[in-house]
């Protein structure tokens, strides 16, 4: 395709990656629009420094065409997240080799398949929620079924905000496992 494609906005990330790999620089701008602010947030989470985080994002995008050329990228979103996270960790270690990483920062994401959650019937879901530990059950019920925000759940349960989030993540994982064990 030798004409500039102005419909890149409607393409998926993977289609944009394919076009970027073929040399279409305009795809880089669309990926920037979708991800630069998210990756800035990721970098801020690790580096805690605005300038270093901006540099990390710009550095990643400057090298993105070459990186995409070298690596097989099946799903761009988790891939670029992992790349940014690794770069931040490397920057932290370079700045201070003795620094001990916060386990929460290097924790591997739960990459389980949520199909069981989305396909469960109301009765199956209710039964699975009832089988969860007390804190997880309360947080899951208030957040997912009663549509409360983290803050509202924290206020209602008396748990600290971080514990609410922890209960939600663990509860969601346990819920999925429970539904899968019971036939979904």
């Amino acid at each position, binding site marked *: 395709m030798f004409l500039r494609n102005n419909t890149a906005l409607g393409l998926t990330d993977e289609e944009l990656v394919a076009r970027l790999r073929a040399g279409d620089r305009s795809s880089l701008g669309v990926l920037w629009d979708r991800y630069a*602010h998210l990756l*800035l947030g990721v970098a801020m989470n690790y580096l805690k420094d605005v300038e270093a985080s901006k540099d990390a994002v710009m550095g990643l995008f400057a090298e993105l065409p070459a990186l995409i050329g070298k690596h097989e990228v099946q799903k761009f*979103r988790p891939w670029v997240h992992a790349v940014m996270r690794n770069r931040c960790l490397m920057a932290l270690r370079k700045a201070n080799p003795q620094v001990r990483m916060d386990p929460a920062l290097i924790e591997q*994401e739960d990459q389980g398949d949520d199909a069981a959650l989305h396909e469960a019937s109301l009765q199956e879901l209710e039964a699975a929620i009832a089988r969860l530990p007390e804190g997880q059950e309360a947080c899951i019920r208030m957040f*997912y079924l009663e549509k409360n925000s983290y803050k509202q759940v924290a206020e209602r349960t008396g748990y600290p905000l971080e514990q609410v989030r922890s209960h939600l993540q663990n509860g969601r994982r346990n819920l999925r496992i429970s539904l899968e064990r019971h036939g979904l």
Partner: protein
Amino acid sequence: MAYSTDPFTPRTPVSRELLERYAEGTLTDAERHAVELHLESDPLLREAAEGLQQPGAVAAMAHLNTQRPVNGPNWKWWILPLVLLIGGVATYLTLQMQEPTTTTWKPAVSVQDLNSAQAMPAAVESTLQVVHAEIDALPVAAVPEATQRQHAPSVPERFHSIASKATRPERETIDRLEAQPVTVARDPGTAAPRVAKATRASRHLVFLHDLKVVDPEELYGSVGPRLRSPGVPANVDPARPDVVPSARPMQSYLDYMDLALGALAKGNDRTALDDLYFLLGQFPGDVNAQFYAGLACYRLGLYPRAIRLLHAAADNTVDSFQEESLWYEALATAKHDGKAAARPALERIVSGGGFYAAQAKALLEAR
């Protein structure tokens, strides 16, 4: 039975503005819940939302947006060309003032030796004029027949209108023979099977009139060549139109392509073709000129020429036009030699799985 109101699936997307307001804490409870529903299922968004709540992060988002890569070359890419341009101008002025007897700059492309006459001191230029006069005096038979056949179309018609048709084409042909051999003309029917080349992902492109062009820096390793203007210089003596000064107007590669592709974009295929042939006369391996000249020929119904040019573009070591060249080569072949002759090219496009694959497959299946 699926749960009809799946509570785990977010209903609305998280825009950048919504995320910004979430980080600033200015959302309603319902809006916060909508964003947090995304956070629970999206690790990237979760980490981003946490990071954007750090002091200064939201302001940095706005500043970061000013660094967005442009569709064409980023401004950073122009620093080196700009420095080289300034250096070139300074060198030119210095040479004009000092009149040195030798040139120290050796261009990457040999044809630029001819063009550099414009920047040469008067003594060297007068020598060139003598050489040109000798070349003009050469009999036409001194030019190899094959070279005449290959080069003759590359002289733009607008040049013929001023210069004497009896003398100017041969003069131009001899200039180009010294510059580079032409490799465009080739019979695709007898050519060896093409060897698949590895695609280079980082080829830098620019867009002129929404038409992609491989950055001349990629082709020539510098800011790109200076090209002679295809027009007749304003200082031609009307009484002697056959005498053209050796120091002709020069243009940068992208300025030149901008004019040629501007004509093509407006449908002035003949003008575009003249300009692109003129460029190919100086740089026969230029993939941009090969492809767009082939396209112009195709649109003008000059199918054999289109096939030759597009075949050369598809086989060019710079493979940025490979698929589109194959596509138009297949179309030109179908028009000129029949649909069956285009089948191999169409099959190759389908196997490549690129932009034209679906159209090529449809054409194959329609037969």
